[in-house]
């Protein structure tokens, strides 16, 4: 009995119908959190004593970087689930997570470069953190490319899941890079254990943005997975009925 939900996850249709009602709530919540967090961070949080106003980029740079990494976990774990249990839905989640993670990594890299110019005096440097984030971006692109490279979806899923799993070596390197090679990138602003070196007037808008990015990620991942389900099941009667054509 307890495992019924797990077996149901094998049915993409069940998942699609179950998640119908979640979309508007996730959309509303993410838009509200992102708007509040952005306005708070841009206009109401105090300026940084050393960096002035340029630090306000943190309110998107840090959440985007968080989700770039969290997206990779989701992609790699669902890839592994798809490999091991041959679960169709897990493969779809992996496929859907890759472009979202790539865009968020891109945001992290671009905002980091723009932040670097007034703060460090350079757009780019081959600092350990930045280089490992660039590698993360290429790993995402690799998964996207592998999805397109094979005729059979099953082969494509297998190949991209293996790449995603091999690429997880990069994750601890990204986390630890600011401590192992302390060059230009500043160390972590948020710590899960112990006191964070940030004032609450800056911390609250940052947390709002981080939660907003998480909810947004969940929303977009869900939307993409649902579209992927429709794409895969387009020959079935329920999808045809949904499309509005006459289901034969």
């Amino acid at each position: 009995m307890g495992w019924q939900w797990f077996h149901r996850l094998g049915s993409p249709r069940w998942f699609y119908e179950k998640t119908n009602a979640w979309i508007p709530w996730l959309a509303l919540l993410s838009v509200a959190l992102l708007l509040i967090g952005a306005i708070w961070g841009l206009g109401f949080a105090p300026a940084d004593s050393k960096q002035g106003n340029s630090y306000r980029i943190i309110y998107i740079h840090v959440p985007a970087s968080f989700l770039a990494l969290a997206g990779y976990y989701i992609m790699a774990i669902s890839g592994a689930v798809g490999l091991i249990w041959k679960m169709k839905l897990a493969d779809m989640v992996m496929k859907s997570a890759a472009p979202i993670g790539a865009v968020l990594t891109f945001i992290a890299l671009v905002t980091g470069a723009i932040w670097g110019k007034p703060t460090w005096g350079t757009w780019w440097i081959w600092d350990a953190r930045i280089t490992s984030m660039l590698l993360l971006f290429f790993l995402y692109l690799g998964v996207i490319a592998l999805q397109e490279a094979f005729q059979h979806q099953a082969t494509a899923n297998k190949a991209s899941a293996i790449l995603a799993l091999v690429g997880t070596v990069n994750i601890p390197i990204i986390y630890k890079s600011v401590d192992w090679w302390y060059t230009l990138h500043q160390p972590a602003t948020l710590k899960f254990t112990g006191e964070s070196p940030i004032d609450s007037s800056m911390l609250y808008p940052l947390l709002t943005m981080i939660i907003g990015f998480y909810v947004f990620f969940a929303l977009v991942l869900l939307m993409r997975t649902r579209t992927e389900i429709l794409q895969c099941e387009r020959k079935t009667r329920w999808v045809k009925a949904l499309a509005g054509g006459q289901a034969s």
Partner: protein
Amino acid sequence: MTDLTFQFENLSEFMLMAGHGPYVWACYLITAVALIYLACAPLIKRRALFAELQRQARIESHELNKRKQASTENS
């Protein structure tokens, strides 16, 4: 409780941000465009898929009608 006062004298100072404005606003703009793209892409794809399925359904029902007509004419 954190102090919630607007940090800038007026709107033009808010835009300028003491010289950092272009950097900060560029970041927020790029991010906004990227997030809107992420939200819209699956909707556009679904619309295209539904349009294609509707087209197929029309073709199928059209052919079915033709076959029905042909069989009634033959009999």
